């Protein structure tokens, strides 16, 4: 099999449609007689619902229906627990999931109270103002530490201290280690992550065809198969009666894999009840409340070291803000807990977290999914230790790397895929060295920094490292089929939100079947085209679905060779597949087109041998035993204005190991995009809640996404440790760019302003000019 597409920067199949405005996004779905929905949402973070009167809204012209929780009857139920807690001994978990429309109580600003169905969104929003809601305010649970008090208000009346979960994991014996350490570094760290803010918000369109007994739902979901299964069950339909289509989706980043959002549950129900298609498109204001987000953790962490900077052990106790409900289980804090270990040998680890309910929107994974919180803690501890032990920051990391011959490396504690955290492969020192080389670390510290300092400029360098567990199970599947016209169709159950699946999967197939990438069409996210799958999340699409595509393509290749061998009456070894045809090696002119073979494989008449499968088609599944471990390092040089604290990134480098690379252009795009979100997280984005749980900056004018002037040019280099866990050797890359940026900013800014020598430490993210001003107050 000749590899010429795999690994090549192939141009994307999907781009011509997207570029000419001819790609179907959710709001482009138009159906005759379609109604438009708008939701009335709570303007209080915590309140008892005394009454809701929708009569005036129902009476308005152009309004077809208005529903509250009472109207849903038996259909009303809290959503399912999507991710059960992992099997960790001694774990406490209190499941409380979101409801379709609030009943009795609202628990965060934006929680839906009622839905209006109207002839237009404009009219529906008009009718919202007619709905009279009486809410009795309750004290809002906002501060994580105060939430734990016995006397605190309770987000859920039967959950004292607002404890959603308590989990303790560890390995070795930290206490014993601590006793014999030369040096201890301990601090409190605060890490805040934000709202994914894809440029396209969420949406649901549901069409119930009573004559065909068929429900079709378009949804911006990252998990169409599970949405189909859940909706069928909820609506009392068989899975065959429900089709979920994730069309082109304008960015996912995690929150679009949260399932059974209130709107996803209500809109299909309303469509069925009214026998009219119904569309709901989330507007930007709603997105800040109605779509899940990530938020903060508070870590009290310490590291025990030997005097030469070797980590003997780490202990971390942290609080995690899970929001008003916890449908996604413990994925985010478990990721924090596990990813803290990083690429380092940490033989003794004790980590305990408490997930806390608050009166704020639900927290579920957003690119990085809690990993950045853990990475911030370990990277900062190392920087502080390096400073106290008078070691170079890069050197202390190098001294602690897991050596390349130690793989697979078992960290023992349980990861988000319920398996022990085992790193499958990796080689960290060359990554660090390359990053240092790209950024010019040694020369910067020795020459450039002193020179620029003498000119009065405050420049600093930072370098941070991380590992990322990617490509986890359970599994994905793919169907590959050669069509009669010689083109190849591929279908898989996951969805696509810009990752280039239509091209990357085609590249895999192209090499197996000797067909041009542009002659391979890929369908993702349509449950009628592929029945099974988990979804696009946790940097697993290319790894898991990609390998399934590969297996299916290999199986089809075998069928092609078998059929062609019969056709030519020769051995399979004498055949080669290229340019869309099978030919006999060494005999020019003896070739049969794949399309012709496909026709041959599906005769209209005649008998076939027992066991024959029609067509040149195969469906295969791939489920890895555990996740493949990607890793990397980021380095950055920044300049900080010491008076205004305005910041400029002068140089940015990423070295990344995601195993075998399918498409370097697409991979670079994923890294650029991840870093941009990391920069947003580190220095621009913060969801600012007040003491009443009100979000003060719920608009894109005030929640600051980085622009082209805020994201620097990045240099990217790769190393490659092939994953032994899948035949293609690939590892995930979707989230990596976003993970180590927070500590990178803290470190580089400290260096630029010489803060550590002035006994000022940056122990929180996000930073900002205002925050730097506050933290450096004692200098003025």
């Amino acid at each position, binding site marked *: 099999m000749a590899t010429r597409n795999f690994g090549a920067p192939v141009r994307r199949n999907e781009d011509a449609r997207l570029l*000419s*405005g*001819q790609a179907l*996004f959710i709001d*482009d779905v138009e159906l005759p007689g379609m109604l438009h929905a708008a939701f009335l949402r709570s303007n209080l973070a915590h309140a008892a619902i005394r009454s809701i009167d929708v009569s005036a809204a129902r009476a308005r012209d152009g309004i077809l229906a208005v529903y509250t929780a009472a109207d849903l009857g038996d259909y009303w139920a809290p959503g399912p627990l999507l991710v059960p807690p992992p099997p960790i001994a001694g774990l406490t978990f209190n499941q409380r999931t979101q409801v379709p429309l609030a009943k009795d109580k609202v628990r965060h600003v934006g929680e839906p109270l009622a839905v209006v169905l109207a002839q237009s969104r404009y009219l529906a929003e008009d009718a919202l103002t007619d709905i009279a809601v009486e809410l009795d305010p309750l004290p809002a649970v906002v501060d994580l530490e105060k939430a734990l008090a016995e006397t605190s208000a309770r987000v859920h009346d039967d959950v004292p201290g607002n404890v959603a979960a308590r989990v303790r994991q560890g390995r070795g014996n930290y206490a014993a280690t601590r006793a014999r350490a030369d040096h201890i570094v301990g601090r409190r760290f605060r890490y805040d992550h934000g709202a994914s803010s894809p440029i396209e918000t969420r949406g649901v369109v549901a069409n119930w065809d009573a004559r065909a007994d068929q429900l079709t739902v378009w949804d911006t979901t990252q998990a169409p198969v599970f949405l189909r299964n859940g909706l069928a069950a909820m609506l009392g339909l068989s899975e065959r009666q429900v089709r979920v289509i994730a069309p082109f989706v304008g960015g996912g980043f995690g929150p679009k894999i949260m399932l059974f959002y209130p709107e996803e549950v209500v809109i299909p129900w309303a469509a069925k009840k009214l026998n009219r298609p119904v569309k709901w498109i989330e507007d*930007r204001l709603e997105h800040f409340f109605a779509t899940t987000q990530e938020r903060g953790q508070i870590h009290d962490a310490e590291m025990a070291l030997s005097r030469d900077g070797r980590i003997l052990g780490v202990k971390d106790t942290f609080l995690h803000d899970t929001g008003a409900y916890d449908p996604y289980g413990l994925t985010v804090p478990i990721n924090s807990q596990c990813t803290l270990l990083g690429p380092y040998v940490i033989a003794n680890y004790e980590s305990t977290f408490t997930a806390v309910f608050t009166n704020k929107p639900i927290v579920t994974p957003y690119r990085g999914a809690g990993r950045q919180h853990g990475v911030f803690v370990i990277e900062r501890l190392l920087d502080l230790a390096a400073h106290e032990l008078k070691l170079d920051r890069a050197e202390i990391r190098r001294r602690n790397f897991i050596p390349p011959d130690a793989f697979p490396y078992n960290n023992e504690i349980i990861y988000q895929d319920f398996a022990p955290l085992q790193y499958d492969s990796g080689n960290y020192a060359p990554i660090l060295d390359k990053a240092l080389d790209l950024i010019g670390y040694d020369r910067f510290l020795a020459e450039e920094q002193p020179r620029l300092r003498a000119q009065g400029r405050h420049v600093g360098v930072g370098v941070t490292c991380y590992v990322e567990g990617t490509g986890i199970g359970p599994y994905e599947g793919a169907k590959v089929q050669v069509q009669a016209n010689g083109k190849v169709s591929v279908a898989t159950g996951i969805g696509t939100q810009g990752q280039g699946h239509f091209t990357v999967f085609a590249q895999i197939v192209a090499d197996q079947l000797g067909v041009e990438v542009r002659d391979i069409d890929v369908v993702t996210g349509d449950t009628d085209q592929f029945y099974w799958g988990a979804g696009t999340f946790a940097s697993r699409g290319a790894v898991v679905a990609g390998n399934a595509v590969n297996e299916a393509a290999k199986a089809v290749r075998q069928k092609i060779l078998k059929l062609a061998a019969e056709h030519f009456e020769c051995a399979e070894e004498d055949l080669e597949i290229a340019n869309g045809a099978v030919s006999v090696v060494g005999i020019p002119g003896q070739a049969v087109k794949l399309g012709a073979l496909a026709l041959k494989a599906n005769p209209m008449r005649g008998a076939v041998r027992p066991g024959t499968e029609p067509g040149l088609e195969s469906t295969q599944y791939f489920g890895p035993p555990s996740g493949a471990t990607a890793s990397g390092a980021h380095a950055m040089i920044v300049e900080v204005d010491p008076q205004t604290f305005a910041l400029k990134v002068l140089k940015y480098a990423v070295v990344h190991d995601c195993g075998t690379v399918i498409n370097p252009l697409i991979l670079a*795009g994923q890294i650029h995009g991840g870093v941009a979100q990391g920069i947003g997280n580190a220095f621009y984005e913060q969801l600012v809640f007040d003491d009443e749980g009100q979000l003060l900056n719920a608009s894109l004018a005030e929640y600051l996404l980085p622009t*082209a002037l805020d994201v620097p040019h990045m240099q990217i280099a790769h190393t490659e440790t092939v994953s032994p866990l899948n035949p293609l050797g690939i590892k995930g890359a979707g989230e990596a760019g976003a993970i180590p940026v927070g500590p990178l900013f803290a470190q580089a800014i400290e260096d630029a302003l010489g803060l550590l020598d002035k006994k000022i430490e940056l122990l929180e993210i996000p930073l900002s000019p205002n925050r730097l001003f506050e933290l450096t107050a004692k200098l003025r």
Partner: protein
Amino acid sequence: MTTDTHDITVTVNGTQYRRAVEARTLLSDFLRHDLSLAGTHVGCEQGVCGACTVLFDGAAVRSCLMFAAQADGHAIMTVEGLAADRDHLHPLQESMRDCHGLQCGYCTPGILMTMKVFLEETPAPDEAQIREALSGNLCRCTGYQHIVEAVALAAERLRR
């Protein structure tokens, strides 16, 4: 509160349309739903993200901040007007594809329209100028780097 309806005549991508519009219908909604030109996308409805950018009498504007009624007698170009068809793309579109300047593609139409005019006014921009011209369009997927490369490549192609 009352509303009224207005008869408007507007040219979009060279085709003249006569429609009756409610006063408050946003230009973005009019293009997308009344004219079925859904290539223009809506991201925020407050003029910040730039996804809805179209050309209004040749100038790049936020269609979410205009009412369809205002378009009476004017000429608009949307992304659908950039290329004759999918097989004959504008150099900007081709360059975006060649440089992987789009991932989900949602912000892309707004960027194409903004950059089209930018390159007409600044045919040989440097990176700083391109980034400044791009700063009014938010992209959450690409980190902008490939978009900048695409615009530079398009500039070069347009100059030939």
